[in-house]
């Protein structure tokens, strides 16, 4: 077996994100389908306006939440597979060397779909637990005739079966593409570097001189910081995503409290924090895992824990604040659109203004959260010893 269920089970990140996406989408989509059933019962002008407003909200939320989270899951899946191949390239290379084809190996990667299924199923189940509450809340002022909760098989197919199948297929295809390279590149210690270099060699010459002087002037720690950032660009994306979620969701949850309901606000806060935590921890763990040798060697040579963590993790700090800024802009834009466009015709929607204090509170909380995580990992670095590295050979 090339990839075991155990490897797939490690993809908690994908499961959690899938779970959140499916939870939100199931609630709204199911509501949408149930709402459609009462369309011909609508009588008054008021009811029709309310109906269309809710329909529009449902669409926006499904698209925004579902779309964003789905895109992230895809990136995360690719990242995991690439990471898996990178860390197992010796075994995979040997399989190829003795005559297994790329497809034959890649087909085993369907297992990665299991984690998608687990997350999606959990999200779906969770949605059905929350929905009675959610339905009551959506219609708490009784502007609409009562919407009854039903189970729609098409929602299950669309949000659980389809993603599982699609992700399994995607995993296999992507793995196959990644494995379609000369065997020697897999067997050799560091094929990414070789690849990158040969790609660079083609269009080099011009930029080379500047790079040379620049590289020699920077200190080792600076060099390492840069090369860590450069070597895994996907991780940069995840860190941006984590802080983006944190910033957008916390701030939005406060506005939601006023615009919609406390429950929506709390849900948003919970989902935002979960996503931010999971993604951030995942990204940082990957950085540390991928660099255990470097860390061990640095400690052997006498670099302090602080210098090690500064070199490997320090580069991500500015990136995370950029993510925070993006999240702030995003949530403002989204709420503006919701209030000005979607709810334009609905009466009684409160005025929406950008909330500076909430932003500041969110920023400070984020800074504390981020630094605490960094501190935790700096302490964790201590546990990495040369002995482990030597024993693994």
């Amino acid at each position: 077996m090339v990839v075991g269920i155990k490897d797939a089970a490690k993809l908690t990140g994908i499961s959690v994100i899938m779970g959140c996406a499916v939870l939100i989408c199931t609630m709204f989509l199911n509501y949408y389908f149930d709402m459609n059933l009462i369309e011909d019962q609508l009588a008054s002008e008021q009811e029709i306006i309310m109906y269309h407003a809710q329909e529009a909200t449902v669409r926006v939320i499904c698209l925004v939440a579902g779309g964003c989270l789905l895109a992230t899951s895809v990136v995360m899946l690719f990242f995991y597979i690439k990471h898996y191949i990178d860390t197992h390239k010796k075994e995979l290379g040997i399989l190829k060397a003795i005559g297994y084809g790329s497809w034959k190996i890649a087909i085993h990667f369907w297992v990665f779909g299991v984690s998608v299924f687990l997350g999606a199923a959990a999200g779906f189940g969770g949605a059905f637990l929350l929905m009675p509450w959610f339905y009551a809340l959506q219609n708490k002022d009784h502007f609409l005739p009562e919407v009854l909760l039903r189970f729609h098989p098409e929602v299950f197919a669309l949000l659980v079966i389809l993603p599982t199948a699609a992700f399994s297929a995607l995993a296999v295809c992507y793995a196959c593409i990644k494995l379609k390279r000369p065997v020697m590149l897999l067997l050799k210690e560091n094929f990414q570097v070789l690849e990158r270099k040969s790609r660079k060699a083609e269009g080099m010459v011009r930029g080379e001189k500047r790079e040379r002087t620049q590289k020699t002037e920077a200190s080792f720690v600076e060099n390492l910081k840069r090369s860590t950032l450069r070597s895994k660009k996907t991780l940069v994306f995840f860190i941006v995503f984590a802080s983006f979620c944190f910033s957008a969701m916390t701030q939005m949850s406060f506005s939601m409290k006023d615009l919609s309901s406390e429950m929506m606000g709390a849900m948003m806060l919970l989902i935002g924090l979960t996503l931010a935590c999971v993604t951030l921890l995942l990204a940082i763990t990957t950085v540390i895992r991928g660099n255990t040798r470097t860390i061990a060697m640095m400690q052997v040579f006498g670099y302090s824990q602080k210098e090690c963590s500064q070199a490997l993790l320090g580069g991500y700090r500015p990136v995370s604040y950029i993510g925070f800024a993006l999240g702030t802009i995003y949530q403002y834009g989204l709420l503006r659109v919701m209030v000005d466009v979607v709810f334009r015709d609905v009466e009684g929607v409160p005025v929406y203004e950008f909330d500076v204090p909430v932003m500041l509170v969110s920023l400070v909380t984020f800074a504390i959260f981020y630094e605490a995580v960094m501190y935790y990992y700096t302490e964790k670095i201590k546990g990495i010893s040369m002995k482990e590295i030597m024993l693994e050979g």
Partner: protein
Amino acid sequence: MIRAEGITKYYGAGKNRFPVLKEISLSVEEGDFTVILGASGSGKSTLLNVLSGLERPEGGRICYGETDITAFSDRELTEFRKENVGFIFQQYYLLPNMNVDQNVKMGADLAGNRNYGDIIDAVGLGEKKRQYPSELSGGEQQRVSVARALAKRPRFLFLDEPTGALDEETGRQVLDYIVRLQKEYGFTIVMVTHNLNIAEMAKTVIRMNSGRISDIHTNEIRKTAYEIGW
């Protein structure tokens, strides 16, 4: 001078706990070339790691001159390694994402050494500064790790089977570089090997047998890397 007194070291826990080093005492003169010989599993690497401050012994003391490093905290120990010790391992452990120059810089920066280019030239890699470890042969990689260790100008150089993964010709070359650089910089060498011939290059030879020192002797005549058998 490095002085070890009654060093004991255990591995494993509970019922599986067993001694790897049993009451080891020895001393190494400054500027010496000492070799630790012994069968596989006799505890050579463990002794080297303990002597150099990479691992802590359960009992005994290790003194560098008057300084007892076994009393150090982790932070002090790191600081101590930074200022005094260089390492070379059998598996090189170069940083794969960094080229030769940057790898050597890892050592050089610790000592504020700006002329580390000389050391790269001295190990014969002046032409390959921009190459990555994956583009070098085993011997070349080991020479990078020699340069990296020496660029931090250590007073003590610890080597764990530096030629273990190299063929005869390349092994001799690496050893020759090390000995020549020792003449130039005057650091102390403690080297683990199980190649009996290499021991003829050293001044002091310490033999180990299942966690104990079985013999220490001094070579009257020392051979060069090209005179020994292999």
